[in-house]
């Protein structure tokens, strides 16, 4: 193998690739997808009860309700807007705070409250909103009794939602470019018969595939580390995170090259992504739904990339990094052997 030739081919890949739609998309997609995921899953997993309020007057209630953490509140300028928001499910309950509401409370007079409840809202959200409002009303009406609450926490602290969706973002960042770039590049060369032209030159097939592998690897590392930097995680432990991103990128690109060797068209590659994606992304699902036993995830190779990265993101350190590194090296070695065997057996038909 001539490294100079590999370098020349890599430069060619970088020059031509930078103009290709798929490469640009592989660079942009992880960031675009991470924003979408954060927006969607952020509100999906927290499920903090949401209260919409239309104030007919002004008063202390407004500032007190906004200070609470147990519910999210949103003010509306008109009753119609409040009702429309309830109808769309943007808030669980919408309430109207009448004029002189606080005066009546302080005088001990009976107060009427009108509320609009979104039919699909959870009973738990409704109950929390009711008690939160009750708590504030007690504060205003000066009928609040000082109650001491001693809280005891049982068990271990779980992952916050931000970290629960993070594996998905990391996986997209590492695997999207890492897998698609070498696979699509090889398929494209096969389709356009340009691979035949390269093969009749002094180039060896290993050099061609290595250049494609390197291109995918560079993009995968770049997007993977950039995602970690954007999410303020890279700074926690740069050396360890770089090691695991590199090992993940090797896995993604090796898999991409293997797919590129065996598959002849993009439709089949997309079909693989559809079903193979479940295998690659299963550990991600486990973090999103913690009820799924972790033991199942351990069967999947990507678990050994996600787990250490997430442990560093959560705790700032990793307890048994050597174990994960060894497992990943073994997986990558297996992929390397498969890749070489595939090149040997399929090489002449490419």
């Amino acid at each position, binding site marked *: 193998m001539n490294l100079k030739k590999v370098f020349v081919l890599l430069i060619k890949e970088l020059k031509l690739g930078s103009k290709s739609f798929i490469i640009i998309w592989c660079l942009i997609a992880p960031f675009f*997808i991470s924003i979408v995921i954060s927006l969607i899953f952020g509100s999906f997993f*927290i499920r903090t009860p949401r209260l919409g309020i239309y104030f007919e007057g002004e008063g202390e209630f407004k500032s007190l309700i906004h200070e609470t953490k147990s519910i999210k509140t949103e003010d509306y300028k008109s009753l119609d807007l409040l009702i429309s928001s309830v109808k769309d499910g943007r808030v669980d309950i919408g309430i109207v705070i009448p004029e002189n509401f606080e005066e009546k409370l302080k005088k001990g007079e009976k107060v009427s409250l009108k509320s609009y409840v*979104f039919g699909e809202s959870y009973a738990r959200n*409704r109950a929390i909103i009711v008690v*939160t409002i009750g708590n504030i009303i007690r504060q205003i009406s000066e009928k609040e009794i000082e109650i001491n609450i001693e809280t005891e926490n049982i068990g271990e602290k779980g992952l916050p939602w931000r970290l629960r969706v993070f594996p998905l973002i990391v996986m997209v960042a590492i695997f999207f470019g890492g897998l698609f770039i070498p696979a699509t590049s090889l398929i494209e060369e096969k389709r356009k018969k340009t691979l035949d032209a390269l093969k009749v030159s002094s180039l060896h097939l290993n050099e061609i595939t290595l250049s494609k592998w390197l291109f995918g690897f560079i993009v995968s590392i770049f997007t993977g580390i950039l995602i970690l930097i954007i999410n303020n995680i890279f700074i926690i432990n740069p050396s360890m995170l770089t090691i695991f991103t590199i090992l993940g990128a090797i896995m993604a690109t090796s898999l991409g090259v293997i797919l590129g060797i065996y598959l002849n068209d993009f439709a089949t590659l997309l*079909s693989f992504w559809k079903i193979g994606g479940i295998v690659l992304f299963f550990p991600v699902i486990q973090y999103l739904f913690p009820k799924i036993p972790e033991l199942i995830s351990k069967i999947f190779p990507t678990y050994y990339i996600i787990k250490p990265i997430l442990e560093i993101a959560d705790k700032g350190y990793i307890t048994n990094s050597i174990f994960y590194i060894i497992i990943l090296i073994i997986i990558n070695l297996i992929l390397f052997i498969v890749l070489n065997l595939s090149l040997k057996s399929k090489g002449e038909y490419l």
Partner: protein
Amino acid sequence: MNLNNILILTKKDLTLFFKNRFFSMITILGLVAFIIIYFALPKLEEDKIKIGIYSDVSLTKIYYFLELHDTEVYDASSIEDLKEKVSKKVISFGIYFPSNVKEKKTLKLIVNAETENEMKEAYEYIAKELFHTEFGYQLNIESENEIIGVDLAGKQIPVRKRLIPILAFFLIIAETLGLSTLISDELENKTIYALLSTPVTVGDIFFSKGVMGLITTLIPSLLFILITVGFRNFPLIFLLLIFGSLFAISIGFLIGSIAKDMMSIIGYGFVIFILIIIPSFNVLAPGTLSSWVKIIPAYYLVDGLHKIINFNSPFLSLLPNILILIISQGILFLFGSLILKRRLI
């Protein structure tokens, strides 16, 4: 347009599709994977707060209060029992009322460490409210509640049932790129010109591709719904799936017409996929996204299926969804045809 030509062309495309064993096997496996996901998810959705109570004093009023607010109560036999149920997440949290609770005004709250801080604050409010309710410090408030929409409190739609329209939609759009490939391949390999030199017309070619697309998008989604939902509301579901498939075909047709090669199909395809997938999250978690998702026509397919499957909505309430799907697919087909005509000239 010649029906015989269309039949021959559709047969050709179908043969090509199933000739690729991997491709057809993967399509079947995708369907199987979605069915497994559906059956692996819990049948019921827990939407109530489950409060565990252990008290050294006799409690009466709080039970009525909790029942009024759709809250489940677990009477623990001891504090240890309370802690065990919290750690195993059988209950949301536990409250211990000691014998001197009224005098000392002190309650013990037992929460799982995994509970978010927002929820812990909410549980404290609940504990305080229960204290006030039980020991006579009630509010002088009269409330009038109006439920908007179907009241599902205590009988929420399980996630797996909410997922049916979404997964069916995924099965439909997953085949979109396949159709784009068929069109793009004919253009890229110039086989379309060979076909046009025969009595086959452009209309025949694209109609046959449409039929092929309808078969590959409709059958997996229909099978998925039949296995998960059964024959309930079948005619309506079938009707909506046909319009949904036509919508997906129109997207595939447009992508296939614009794209120069497979690379650009994937490029355009992913952008469009992400855009049209977004509205489906609103069905999974209502109110998650703002009203702007309604400008994406795919919303009306997922929303329509959701209405039929989970609310047994009648045909009339689905009419706006169907009309929007028809209009949007008409526009997409029109754009696709115009672009294609320019490319063929």
